[in-house]
Each structure stands twice: as structure tokens, then as C-alpha cells.
């Protein structure tokens, strides 16, 4: 059991380091990718809500340690977004095809940005030195590029899963033309 816990912790850290020190450093659209959200979606799909919540807590803690926002900001956001993902998977996007997973990640990204943006504006009320984000053309174009990159990352991981293992195929329905 501890062995599995250590493996999960290492994979979680690697995913976070990849996001924080690699993706966010890249120029252009790549820096708008939210890889953590994509990973959370797949953890929810492959395991269950309980394990996914622990992953959300793990990502939340390490994000709060390495980002300079009030502690608990990302913890709360990841838990909220995961609950939304679970709701969508259980009630609307039930067929678990590539398209529903991409739709799940896109809706989650929009929800993440909405909650994040609102919280940042709230913090700016108490901290005059922090500049509040504004809904400008730059912000909207970054949001669009974030959606595109998250969708692309989702599709990429889907195909890697399908190539890497046969056992996922019954879960990921890929309708072929006859």
C-alpha cells in the first residue's frame, strides 16, 4: 500500500514539475496549457472519485506551495473542478468516448478559469500591489489558446493510452466507420 502511495506521489510531482518548469516556460500557446487539469480528468476516468480527490488534494497542496497566492486557493479550485467533472461524467458525458473526454476537459478549463479569475479579482481588493486580471483581448486570446492546447493534450493522451494498452479500449469507445 505504501509502495503504491509513493509511486502516486512521484508521478504527481513529475506532472507538476512538467507543468511548472517546462510548459509554463515555453513561448506562445504552450504556456497556456493546464496539464494538471487534463491529468485530473484521466485519473477520474481511470480510477474513481475517491482516488481522484486525493490526486486533486495532492496537486492543490503542491500548487499552493509553489505559487504565490493564498494557501488553499488551488486546493479549493481543484476540488471544485473535480466535483464538476464527476457530475458531468455521471450525468451528461457518459459514453466516455474521445469527444466526451475532450468536452469534459474544455468545460473544466472554462470553469477553472472562471473560478480562478473571480478569486484573483477578490484578492486584488485586499492587496493593492497585486494587479487584478482584466477581461481584455489578450486574456481572451490566452483563454482560447489554453482551450486548444488542453484539448490537444487530452486527445494526445487518449491515443497514447489506446496504443499502450488494450485494456482501456472497452472504456474508451472509439466508433469506427463500417
Amino acid at each position: 500500500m505504501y509502495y503504491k502511495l509513493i509511486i502516486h506521489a512521484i508521478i504527481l510531482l513529475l506532472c507538476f514539475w512538467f507543468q511548472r518548469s517546462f510548459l509554463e516556460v515555453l513561448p506562445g500557446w504552450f504556456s497556456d496549457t493546464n496539464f494538471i487539469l487534463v491529468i485530473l480528468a484521466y485519473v477520474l476516468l481511470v480510477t474513481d472519485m475517491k482516488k481522484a480527490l486525493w490526486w486533486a488534494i495532492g496537486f492543490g497542496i503542491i500548487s499552493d506551495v509553489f505559487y504565490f497566492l493564498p494557501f488553499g486557493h488551488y486546493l479549493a479550485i481543484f476540488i471544485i473542478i473535480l466535483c464538476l467533472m464527476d457530475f458531468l461524467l455521471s450525468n451528461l458525458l457518459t459514453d466516455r468516448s474521445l469527444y466526451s473526454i475532450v468536452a469534459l476537459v474544455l468545460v473544466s478549463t472554462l470553469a477553472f478559469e472562471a473560478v480562478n479569475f473571480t478569486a484573483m479579482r477578490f484578492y486584488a481588493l485586499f492587496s493593492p500591489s497585486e494587479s487584478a486580471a482584466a477581461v481584455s483581448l489578450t486574456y481572451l486570446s490566452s483563454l482560447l489558446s489554453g482551450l486548444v492546447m488542453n484539448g490537444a493534450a487530452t486527445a494526445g493522451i487518449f491515443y497514447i493510452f489506446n496504443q499502450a494498452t488494450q485494456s482501456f479500449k472497452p472504456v474508451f469507445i472509439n466508433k469506427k466507420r463500417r
Partner: protein
Amino acid sequence: MIKIRFKNISKYGAVLVLLVFLHYVGILGPVESLVQRISSPLMYQIYGVGSFFRSRYYEQNDIAGLSNKNRILEAQVRALTAGQAEMIKYKEENERLRGMISFFDENKGKYLPSNVISRSDHLGTANDDQSIIIDKGSDDGLKDGLAVLDHEGNVVGKISDTKEKISRVDLLTSSRCKLAVSVVNAERTIGVAKGELGLTTRIDFIPQTEILHKEDLVLTSGLEIDIPRGLSVGRIDQVNKESNELWQDAYIRPISNLNDLSIVSVILPR
């Protein structure tokens, strides 16, 4: 029927509240420090890979302007070489005079080298890449407001937030970065340089009577606590002077390449 799992959510909500409480009470502090200390060396290596791609991308975009830039730089080198002999003479004279009156060189300070481990200040779309994260924090004696230099000694920004083992540095082009500067011109114009739109740095509210020229050197003025004077910041790139305005303003081109930072130095308080 719509399914909502309230039981699990409330349990994990309690975990969230507990973790936040433990953080603000200070119990989680050692764990956070340990995670930061373990992660920093690996994050620096990963950052190096990302930074390589970032540098190549900006170099490719700039190829068109490189030959023009090369011609300007060659002309500058020739002019600087001519002035170098005179500078050497002044330096020798300065050292003799300082020795005579035992003048304490207030520009000498302690520097703390740090590795850059990330850019951007928060996850998500609304982040800007006008901040860098370094692997030194309050445990190493850092605090808000300290100046950060590149490997050549040019100012790249100021520390805006610290944790135990990491700090956030707002770059000169960040709208959060404000630096007291002086221009090397006849009037020794002083002002506050503030980042604008993540692209440039501007000095506002310069009196109309002061004369600024393109390529005038901009240095730190020493009017801020903990930031010594005489550190190079940039050069004047554009002066906006309208006769019907009360003030003029000037845009500064940072000397340092802010897109290619991997090792920086923090000037420690005296």
C-alpha cells in the same frame, strides 16, 4: 436522475479546511520547505530544457532584425573602445583618491546567486510571464524589494514575494515592478521606472525642462533602501515630449535579455 455525491465532498472539504488551518498555524511549514528544497534542483534542470526552446523561438523571430542590430552594435563597440582609454585614466585617479580619504565603497555589497526554476506567477490563462521564480527564499535572507541582477550585473527586476525556499521576482517589464532610477544626462534626471504591458519599461512625470536623448544610460538612483545606486538598468529607447504637455515620458530598453534568464544574483541588504 441526477447523481451528486455530497458525502465524499463534505469529507474532503473538511480535509481542505484542516490543511489550510495547519498551514497558517505553521505546522505545515517544515513540510513545505522540504518539498521546495527537494524540488528546486530538478525544476532547475527541467527549466533549462524549456528555456532552451524559449530562447530559440525568440531568436528565430528576431533573425530579420539581427543584421541591423549587428551594425548598430559594431558602431557602439568602436565608440566605446575610443572612450575606454579615458575611462581607465579616470578609474586609476578615482582609486587613488579613494585610497587617500579611506572612502568606503558603498556600492560593494553581498550577492546571493540563485537558479531560475520557473516563470509565471500563477496557473491558468491569466498569468503573465513577467515574473520568474528563483530557488532562494526567506530562509536565505531574502525579502521583498531586493534588486535582482543577471550574470553581467544588469538589473532584471525586484523580489516581490518570498516563501521559505523560493521567491518571486517581478521583471522590469512587469506592471508590478517599480524601480527608482536616474538617467546619465546633464541634468541627472531621476524618476520611477515602471513596467508596461509586459513589453517595456517607462519613466513618467519627467519635467519638460530636462533633456533626454536616445541611448542615454539609465542606472538605479540609490533612493530605495537596499538597492545601491549605479546598477545598470537599460538605455532610453524613446522620448515622448509634447510642448503642450506638463510632463514628458521616456521608454527604457532593458540591457538584460529578460527572455533568457537561468542564473541571477540577488543583492542582499546591507
